[in-house]
């Protein structure tokens, strides 16, 4: 069967976002390279500034600049000003395609650098929760009995705690760093995987090929690792695709609340938090990160749906 077109398109969109996150920072300057913050704060999308670097290292961002004789005649913040030609080291024209924030940082650059953090943390948390959940599910279904009952009641209990509240408690107890953050998000989201894995293994255990393997004397470890686990990978992968969007959302929620990535590093969530602070003065600070975040989550969800469709047809 061919891939459903929507799933193909969203896979493409995800790939574009990922590629931008990987390559993007090479294309633009790091967002911390601010020139003349007073004159570049909260510029609207598409603004252009001429940046003059002076001999003492300071920068001037001018709306207009003309060279008269050897000297520069510039207009900065609406005021005309003359700069002696000898002071000027270099002149550069900069275009702020998506505007700038209150500190004069380029929103496009911050989005690209922040996307890196958002995607990396989402994938890392996904790996943690999938591995943890799969291990718990496998242990529960293979050992059975009291271990199974205990682990599954534990999953029920963690499932009943609102995710964000649990993660807030964990971040208050542990100092957040990127690794801790991924583990914390993983600790709050393994339960679905564990249930799925347990159901899969229990169904596979009943199948004839397992009976056959037992009959020819295969060891339990061999049956489990070589024959049962490979059969659970397809549903696990589809489930992981479905949860990728959710985990990116959770990371951005945490960063939005200020418990995720700490400044000056930024993810899409913390960009939105900055946007909230300057909401009255610049819509672009909220709209661009919000749309990018929503588009990424949407693409992940559609991709998961396409995978599900495809798996159903393969069966």
């Amino acid at each position, binding site marked *: 069967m061919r891939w459903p077109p929507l799933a193909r398109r969203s896979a493409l969109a995800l790939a574009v976002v990922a590629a931008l996150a990987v390559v993007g920072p090479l294309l633009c300057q790091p967002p911390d390279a601010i020139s003349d913050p007073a004159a570049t704060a909260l510029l609207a999308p598409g603004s252009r500034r001429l940046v003059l670097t002076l001999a003492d290292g300071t920068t001037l961002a001018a709306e207009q600049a003309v060279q008269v004789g050897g000297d520069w005649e510039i207009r900065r913040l609406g005021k005309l000003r003359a700069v002696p030609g000898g002071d000027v080291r270099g002149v550069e024209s900069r275009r702020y395609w998506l505007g700038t924030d209150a500190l004069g940082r380029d929103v496009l650059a911050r989005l690209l650098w922040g996307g890196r953090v958002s995607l990396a943390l989402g994938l890392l948390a996904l790996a943690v929760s999938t591995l943890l959940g799969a291990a718990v599910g496998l242990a529960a279904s293979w050992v059975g009995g009291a271990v199974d009952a205990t682990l599954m*009641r*534990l999953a*029920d*209990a*963690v*499932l*009943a*705690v*609102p*995710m*964000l*509240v*649990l993660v*807030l*408690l*964990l*971040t*208050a*107890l*542990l100092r957040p760093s990127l690794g801790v953050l991924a583990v914390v998000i993983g600790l709050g989201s393994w339960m679905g995987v564990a249930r799925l894995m347990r159901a899969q293994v229990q169904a596979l255990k009943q199948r004839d090929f397992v009976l056959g393997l037992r009959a020819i004397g295969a060891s339990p470890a061999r049956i489990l690792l070589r024959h049962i686990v490979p059969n659970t990978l397809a549903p696990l992968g589809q489930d992981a695709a479905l949860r990728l*969007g959710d985990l990116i*959302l959770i990371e*951005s*929620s945490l960063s*939005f*609340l*200020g*418990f995720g990535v700490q400044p000056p590093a930024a993810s899409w*969530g913390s960009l*939105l938090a900055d*946007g*909230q602070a300057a*909401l*009255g003065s610049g*819509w672009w600070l*909220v*709209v661009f*990160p*919000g749309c990018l*975040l*929503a*588009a990424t*989550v*949407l693409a992940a*969800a*559609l991709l998961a749906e396409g995978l599900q469709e495809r798996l159903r047809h393969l069966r």
Partner: protein
Amino acid sequence: MTRRVLGRIAASLVVLWVVATGTYGLVALAPGDASSRIADPRLPAAARERWRRDFGLDRPLPARYLGWLAATLRGDLDVSWQHRRPVAGLLAEALPPTVLLTSLGLLVETLGGLAIAVVQAMRPRSRLDRWLGAASLLGYAAPPFAVGLGLVWLFSYALGWLPPSHMLSPAGQGGWAHGRDLAAHLVLPVATIGLTGMGALARYTRGSLVEERSQGYVLAALARGCSRRRALLAHALPNAALPLVTVLGLSLPFLVSGSLLVEVVFAWPGMGQLLFQAALARDIPLLMAGTLVGTAAVVLGNVLADLAAWWLDPRVRP
């Protein structure tokens, strides 16, 4: 039946106990204790020891745990480090605004989701169906805080129609003006919860409505001369909406998390705001109590959803 109901309630009490114990264990086993978290690091060692004794930290862990459990069961949730007041009182003050906000949000979410699904299922695969389907996907994927900020920008800053935050205007008003003020402050947060929640609901209901439509009993109703609209609303919808009760019950944790974000965006003086401030201040007793109350709300919601499903649908009744 009574046995099943009691068993269900007992199981949820076990869940609550596991969560309480797990929370306590996390806090007790995390590096550092109360004396290192809230006491001044320059405190001399002797004073620190007295501190630990005053907090009961010199007793063994099981004794502390049992004491804590007994106090929690009595409703004594310890004193907040940040506010220096009993946690129970703080939670009692923050609960009504949150209940008001989330119940209205849930109402908008359910009604909106059902309405979208019915409109879609009237003509499946039409252009309107596809557009609404795309819109509900977008609602599902959009982060609640981004939607909230977008609404604030549009309706408070650009248009100036509605207040951007808080529950009431600073100037106190009485009577009708008070109610109008509260309603104006409610519109945007309720809309945010509703808009971000109704997408998933609409997708789910549309799927089951379209499935029910092709069932024999709907065809029979149409053959008896029932109008298409009536066949859908009076015959297919009740059957399609039944599983929705369970879905709503299962979505409660997301509602609690989502309303926490919405409360922070809109500076709503509820539980979410209280817990957010507690996390900022590392106010562990308040956070622990908040976790318990949030979990209790979810567990209660799940039990109610199960009971409602049993009551509404004889087929799933035990």
